[in-house]
């Protein structure tokens, strides 16, 4: 543990001392200093350091047994900077400030002084030559080769390749895909059937299955005119409210959306749901992606601030937040780190978070770039303020912005006036009141005071700045908040040109912003707007590429770049770089319309291919077993939300209500028992109708997941998640067979079938298959199903005193359970 305050004053004292002793003479070779080295320094190093940093072992890639080795340093950089103990890692480490060396026991203060003095005097080492001792350049040099890495090159619109196959020549995307297949000798697959196509498109765009009628109609229309019927289908689905619920969910993964803080109290982030609703609406409205970026990063700094743009800045507030950090000064940087990582991964596809403590190990992202990026966010008011010794209480003035217009203000002022006069009256009455009356009045006064404190208008979880003046930003050596390095200014990434940001403080932004200013909302620095504009620019090579790749990823199950949030060297290179660029140009040229990209992809032959594998096509199977080049579609398991939503939809229970705080699926007492306060923060008594809403509205609580969702690979929302895992584990089967939710849903499904198909068994069976899979059962399936139901009926009959109808119902419910559990239900062709 470090007692930093003690060390710091001690160091200051020591430095002044050393300076007076050694003066500023940089030449370290006089006899006296060398003697000092042999007598004091070398034995000390030999006893405490060489064992792990010498000839035998080089922990952390570091040797300390020569001056050259110290200067060359290890993984963390040079161990010493001659004449500069304050910047020397060795000295930092022996003070136990960042590293703690030697690890077994701290050196005595006398020993620390010896090494400090030695570094201060230039670290003289007998026999060493200055020539070889040039310290490695601080900061990473960015080369032309770095700039020429595919992801950093400007987006180039390549001509669409011609396709010799006439059936594949109508969509541009196909040209790129087909040419590559041709060159690799791979055979594209035949088209999917209309039924497969409509189910694929429905689940892909809405996360819901089509109704039996929709399937039939589409099948008929498709036979008449495949392209126009498909085009119409796509337009219908893109216009559905459910589209935003599906694709908004993808975005919520990428930005680590959740509605609580995490940690011990896991408090609710009030109004965070507005951000979720904003995202859904943005997708539904096909909000231009550049606007979407500007609003989330700088919605409070735009020329025209709107309710939406303020709500969008909730982006900054939805991450993990420790309300009781051990070291608040460090926690501020952890919060900024969460923002930096999320911003760079989500929008830029870069893992700049790796450069917090040192230059990025693989990408041309120097540590300075991390802090230059941090400077853009430096003025965001931390989520809380120090109101108690250990806890960071939420400070409403720092994070909530009222959603108000002049009318609301006027109304509130009137209410305020009324309340205040009531208050004055009560206070006057209190003066002459007896004890008992006083108590009553006290209660009334408190009530009014509470009302005055909590205005009745709606609010948004949002970003606030402290005013136009921004604290300086420093590189933190090894990421440690206590070791400040060079000062940096807000500046864009070096490898992408590194221009200095043009930053203007912002105090106005339309009527709403003026209103907010009158309500005490401070002007802002304008830094985030500059950053947002740089990211949302057609000239930024990352932004459009990263987005179209995400869209591609969710259409095909893997992206053109298989690592959607990492376009650096640790990520994968694009399988079709020219196609990626072509799509990116299309996005930019069509006003950053996401729906435009959907249309291009969904109408392509590539997308419409069958997912069935031809195992006799040995060449394709061995050449590209992972199907990276898309010689077929992928059979894909639905994600957790789509599985739950499909069940609700098929059972007929789905409640399409949108928006609001969210829904709280019923959790068993056993699940709640994992909490230190069982049931805390979870509504227990929501109505069944509310609980039948779509999964995107499930209240996202960081320390309490819904088992159905968790088991089906819904991610923990603590970190940005660019793609879902797909695991197959036994607990999924248990939950999908035995949970209360499934009991509820199978019963509803059975009732629905009975109501829609009447008493005839084969009608019921057909209806069930059509609802669940959009098709009729085969003869074999009919046989297997009816035999199962017969066996179950006879078992039920022997089990309880049920009448014939009840026995039939029970058996059919179990059959419905089978349908929900079938692979065909959750794997989409």
């Amino acid at each position: 543990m470090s007692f930093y305050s003690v060390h710091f004053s001690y160091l200051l004292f020591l430095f002044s001392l050393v300076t007076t002793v050694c003066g500023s003479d940089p030449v370290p070779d006089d006899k006296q200093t060398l003697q000092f080295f042999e007598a004091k320094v070398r034995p000390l190093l030999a006893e405490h350091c060489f064992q792990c940093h010498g000839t035998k072992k080089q922990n952390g890639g570091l040797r300390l047994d020569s001056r050259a080795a110290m200067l060359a340093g290890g993984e963390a950089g040079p161990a010493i900077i001659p004449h500069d103990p304050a910047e020397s890692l060795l000295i930092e480490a022996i003070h136990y400030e960042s590293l703690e060396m030697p690890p077994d026991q701290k050196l005595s203060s006398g020993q620390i002084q010896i090494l400090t003095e030695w570094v201060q005097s230039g670290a003289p080492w007998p026999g060493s030559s200055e020539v070889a001792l040039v310290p490695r350049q601080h900061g990473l040099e960015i080369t032309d080769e770095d700039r020429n890495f595919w992801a950093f090159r400007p987006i180039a619109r390549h001509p669409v390749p011609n396709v010799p196959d006439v059936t594949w020549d109508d969509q541009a995307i196909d040209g790129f895909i087909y040419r590559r297949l041709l060159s690799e000798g791979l055979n594209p697959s035949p088209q999917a059937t209309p039924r497969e196509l409509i189910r694929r498109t429905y689940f892909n765009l809405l996360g819901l299955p089509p109704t039996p009628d929709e399937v039939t109609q589409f099948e008929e229309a498709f036979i008449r005119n495949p392209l126009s019927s498909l085009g119409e289908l796509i337009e219908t689905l893109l216009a559905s409210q459910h589209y935003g619920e599906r694709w908004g969910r993808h975005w919520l993964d990428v930005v680590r959306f959740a509605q609580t803080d995490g940690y011990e109290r896991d408090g609710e982030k009030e109004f965070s749901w507005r951000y979720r609703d904003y995202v859904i609406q943005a997708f539904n409205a096909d909000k231009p992606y550049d606007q979407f970026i500007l609003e989330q990063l700088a919605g409070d700094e735009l020329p025209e601030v709107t309710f939406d743009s303020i709500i969008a800045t909730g982006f900054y507030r939805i991450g993990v937040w420790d309300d009781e950090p051990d070291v608040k000064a460090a926690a501020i940087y952890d919060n900024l780190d969460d923002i930096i990582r999320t911003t760079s991964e989500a929008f830029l596809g870069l893992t700049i978070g790796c450069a917090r403590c040192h230059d990025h190990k693989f990408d041309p992202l120097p540590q300075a770039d991390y802090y230059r990026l941090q400077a853009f966010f430096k003025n965001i008011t931390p989520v809380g303020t120090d109101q108690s010794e250990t806890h960071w209480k939420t400070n409403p003035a720092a994070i909530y912005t009222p959603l108000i217009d002049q009318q609301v203000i006027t109304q509130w002022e009137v209410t305020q006036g009324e309340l205040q006069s009531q208050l004055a009256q009560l206070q006057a009455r209190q003066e002459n009141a007896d004890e008992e009356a006083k108590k009553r009045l006290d209660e009334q006064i408190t009530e009014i005071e509470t009302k005055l404190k909590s205005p009745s208008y709606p609010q948004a979880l949002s970003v606030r700045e402290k005013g136009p003046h921004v604290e300086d930003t420093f590189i933190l050596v090894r990421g440690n908040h206590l070791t400040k390095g060079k000062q940096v200014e807000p500046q864009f990434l070096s490898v992408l040109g590194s221009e200095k940001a043009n930053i203007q403080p912002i105090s106005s932004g339309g009527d709403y912003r003026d209103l907010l200013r009158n309500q005490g909302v401070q002007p802002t620095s304008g830094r985030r707007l500059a950053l947002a504009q740089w990211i949302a620019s057609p000239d930024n090579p990352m932004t459009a590429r990263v987005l179209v790749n995400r869209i591609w990823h969710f259409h095909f199950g893997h992206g053109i770049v298989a690592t959607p949030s990492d376009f650096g060297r640790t990520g994968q290179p694009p399988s079709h770089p020219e196609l990626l660029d072509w799509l990116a140009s299309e996005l930019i040229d069509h006003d950053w319309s996401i729906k435009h990209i959907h249309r291009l992809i969904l109408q392509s032959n590539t997308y419409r291919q069958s997912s069935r594998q031809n195992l006799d096509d040995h060449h394709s199977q061995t050449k590209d077993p992972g199907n990276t080049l898309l010689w077929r579609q992928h059979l894909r398991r639905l994600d957790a939300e789509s599985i739950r939503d499909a069940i609700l939809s098929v059972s007929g229970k789905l409640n399409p209500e949108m928006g609001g705080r969210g829904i709280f699926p019923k959790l068993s007492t056993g699940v709640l028992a994992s909490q230190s306060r069982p049931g805390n923060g979870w509504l227990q008594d929501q109505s069944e109708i509310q609980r039948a809403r779509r999964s995107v509205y499930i209240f996202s609580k960081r320390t309490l997941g819904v088992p159905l969702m968790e088991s089906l690979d819904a991610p923990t929302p603590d970190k940005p998640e660019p793609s879902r895992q797909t695991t197959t584990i036994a607990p999924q089967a248990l939950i999908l067979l035995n949970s209360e939710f499934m009991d509820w849903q199978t019963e509803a499904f059975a009732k629905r079938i009975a109501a829609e198909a009447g008493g005839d068994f084969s009608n019921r069976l057909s209806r069930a298959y059509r609802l669940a899979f959009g098709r009729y059962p085969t003869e074999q399936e009919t046989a297997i199903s009816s035999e199962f139901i017969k066996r179950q009926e006879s078992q039920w009959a022997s089990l309880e005193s049920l009448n014939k109808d009840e026995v039939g119902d029970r058996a059919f419910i179990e059959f419905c359970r089978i349908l929900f559990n079938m692979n065909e239900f959750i794997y989409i062709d």
Partner: protein
Amino acid sequence: MLEKLLSPLARQGTPNHPHCAGSRREFLWQLGAGFGGLALTDILDRDGYFPPRAEAATNVTEHPLMTRAPDFRPKAKRVIFLFMYGGPSQMDSWDYKPELQEHHGKTVEIQTRRRKKKTQTILGSQRHFERYGESGLWGADCFPHINQQLDEICLVKSLYADTFAHGSAMIQMNSGRIIQGHPTIGSWLGYGLGSENENLPGYVVMVDPRGGPIAGAANWSSGFMPAAYQGTHLRNKGEPILDLKPKSGITRSMQRDLVDTLAMLNEQHRKTRPGYSELPARIASYELAFQLQMSAPEVMDLATETQATLNMYGILDPAPEETGCVGPEPFGRQCLIARRLVERGVRYVQIYSGGGHGDQNWDAHGDIEKNLRIHAPEIDKPIAGLIKDLKQRGLLEETLIVWGGEFGRQSVAQNGGKGRDHNPLGFLYWMAGGGVKGGHSHGETDPLGHEATVNRHHIRDLHATILHLMGLDHEKLTYFYGGLKHKLTGVREARVIHDLIA
């Protein structure tokens, strides 16, 4: 078989991107189902489910828990982590400090919360200490049964951690990081070694009957790893595993029929979709789930245990007359279940002593004596019983028991009272079995027991040691996420504490 599965995937990533292609292990987890990946693969292979080429034709993660070889010969095969939630006191248990007792009531300037030095009153331990066993390790009289086992126990008295707050300290003890969102120890072991039992989860957590620890399930989260690596909460009451059995009233034979019919219908579907190994894997997962309905209750069912065994764990003992004390029965039962779990090859079992808030757990702010009166008898006989029982069954050698909390407690009275505040500056853990030295003590705190001074170890060293005993190199066990190879021990250098190892 394994290599055959691996090669196509490995080919995709390796040549140009050695660092991101990941370790062999990173590909293995993409291939292994749920409880018992190995067994599943065997089933599939036996049934000829895997066609000749297409095994790895998809990038889905089917067999995350396939059994995998350790880096080197392990000392321990399984871990039972006894987590004293709230932070147990070192100076009232096995870090005997005569000077602390001697100076009881005097004032001292001491670091209480981080960087805050305050003049405080020394609170000497009221416990009586004696030497036990051949090793002569000191023990406090509130743990009479565990003290009898001190010759099996290896004390580490000089640990320190980074935070004074329960929330982040719990997360750090379990995941190595104070920031939420990283995989926990059991997840790393599942990822590194896979599971040995096809019918039981590889990572099991049991919580106190009074409630879970703060931050709840975040303590056994798999963080950014797949959900298959998260801890499974084994419940004391009702169903041991969530949704284990049908509630609709159908019998086991009826559900057998259901699962068989489901498999038949799924088979119709699979036949027309060759080449997708995830389809047979999911079919098999239903069979595993069906088996689990028998194997999970069987583990929980103590009816086959003898009276003597139950007695050894304190399960038959009444609760002492102390308000808030639930007696040794619940924890004893969990310790015995833990033995039954490790007998069946479960890799990592974690039991929480203490739940909820305040004196419901080891968080002795108000009165250390009262807190000890509540919790010491709850764990003393059960833990001693567990050690004895594992030993007599020959299981102790390969089962590592780990005992400790999220931090320790201070040597001074909190606010002049009788309680002790949190203390991450110095605290003790002990381990037993699993290749550690018995009757051994490592490291020292200062004379007041407040801060680790001799052979200090950050808890990342404890984590590295646990992995090492399990045959894993903490430097090599990495998981690639967000552009970085993550380790349980983080980016700072961690050292295996070799002095603990027999």
